[in-house]
């Protein structure tokens, strides 16, 4: 039996194959590596439980601080590591432009939705993989959001975003002291992650499935 892979045409399957082909040819890691990065990404999010409604909506209610603690620590460590990797030529900058209106309107919409859904676009799929149907419904909503954004991009969303003010980074404002600025930023952000008081909101439905001595709320 021959296995026929259709790489041309516009059937649903062909468009999926074209996605793989694109990744193979765009030079940002092999297909296997990109998939592996995803596996580790999903594994970390799942294993730290930050995909849970109680963690993200819990943070919005200020009843859980695991998400900001983890985010700030990751940024603190990565900022120092990344800066010196770029200096050594092992990495490059990929700065997003300052499109002020887009950032403010988009950030506000994003923050409101994140509080209501209790997920973001990275943690959502991990939550779906854990069997959360309500998040799947949210993802379908997101798919329509992506559709509307694509269709009305030129006419509505692009003008709404405004002009780019450039791709600035913080050390750029301190010529000569870039290293110090990066070090201070990394250390301060890491310290913030440690200083934020640890508060946790647990999900009884998850905890009840664990043996008593494994329950984090009873330690």
């Amino acid at each position, binding site marked *: 039996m021959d296995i026929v892979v259709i790489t041309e045409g516009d059937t649903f399957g062909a*468009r999926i194959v*074209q*996605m793989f082909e694109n990744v193979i040819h*765009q*030079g940002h*890691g092999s297909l296997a*590596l*990109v*998939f592996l990065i*995803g*596996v580790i990404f999903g594994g*970390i999010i*799942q294993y*730290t*439980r930050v995909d849970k409604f109680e963690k993200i909506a819990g*943070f*919005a*209610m*200020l009843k859980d601080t695991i998400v900001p603690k983890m*985010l*700030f620590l*990751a940024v603190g*460590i*990565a900022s120092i590591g990344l800066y010196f990797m770029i200096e050594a030529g092992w*990495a490059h*900058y990929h700065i*997003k432009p300052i499109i*002020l209106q*887009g*950032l*403010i*309107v*988009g950030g506000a*919409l994003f*923050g409101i939705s*994140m*509080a*209501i*859904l209790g997920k*973001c*676009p990275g943690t*959502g*799929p991990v939550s779906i*993989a*854990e*069997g959360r*149907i309500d998040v799947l419904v*949210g993802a379908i*909503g997101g798919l329509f959001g*992506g*559709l509307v*954004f694509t269709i009305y*991009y030129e006419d509505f*969303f692009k003008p*709404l975003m405004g002009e780019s003010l450039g791709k*600035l*980074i*913080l050390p750029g404002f301190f010529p000569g002291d870039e290293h110090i600025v*990066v070090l201070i930023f990394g250390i301060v952000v890491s310290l913030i992650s440690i200083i934020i008081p640890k508060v946790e909101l647990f999900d009884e439905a998850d905890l009840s*499935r664990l043996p008593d001595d494994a329950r984090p709320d009873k330690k």
Partner: protein
Amino acid sequence: MTNRLPWWMGGILMAGLLLLTFSVFGADRPIGASTYVPYFADIVFDLDAEKYPYLKEIANAGAWEGVMLMGALFGGFVTSVFLTKSFRLSLIPSGWKKYKNNSIVSRLIWSFVAGFMMIIGARLAGGCTSGHFMSGMSQLAISSMVFGTVVMIALVITGRFFYNVKEK
């Protein structure tokens, strides 16, 4: 075997993954997780790329994140079944029942609306928690600091007024 990693371990591992992804030995690009959504919308609804130039802008990033997302679904599923043992089908989170209401219909409608707004917001800002907050702030990008600040404020204000925080 513990059923969850402490936050500091998660932070260190996530920093390691960011650095691996950024490095020329890895993918030489940041981690992002919102461009794949309009990319998937194109796959599902079969849009005409000639008519919608946005599709060309996001073709590479969308495909890359699409494959990464498939990995994340797989990694999340395996971890939930074997490590956290939290895999179960559910329609409404316990926290929603406790601080909002018991209605599945209400949860599903709000999920759909929030999912819709979330992607519009992320695409307007050019990134999400992964692309802006983690990858962008790691590069000390001003745009990502603006985004992070606005998101945190909107998140906490919404949390305060959308849920019955005072109850219990």
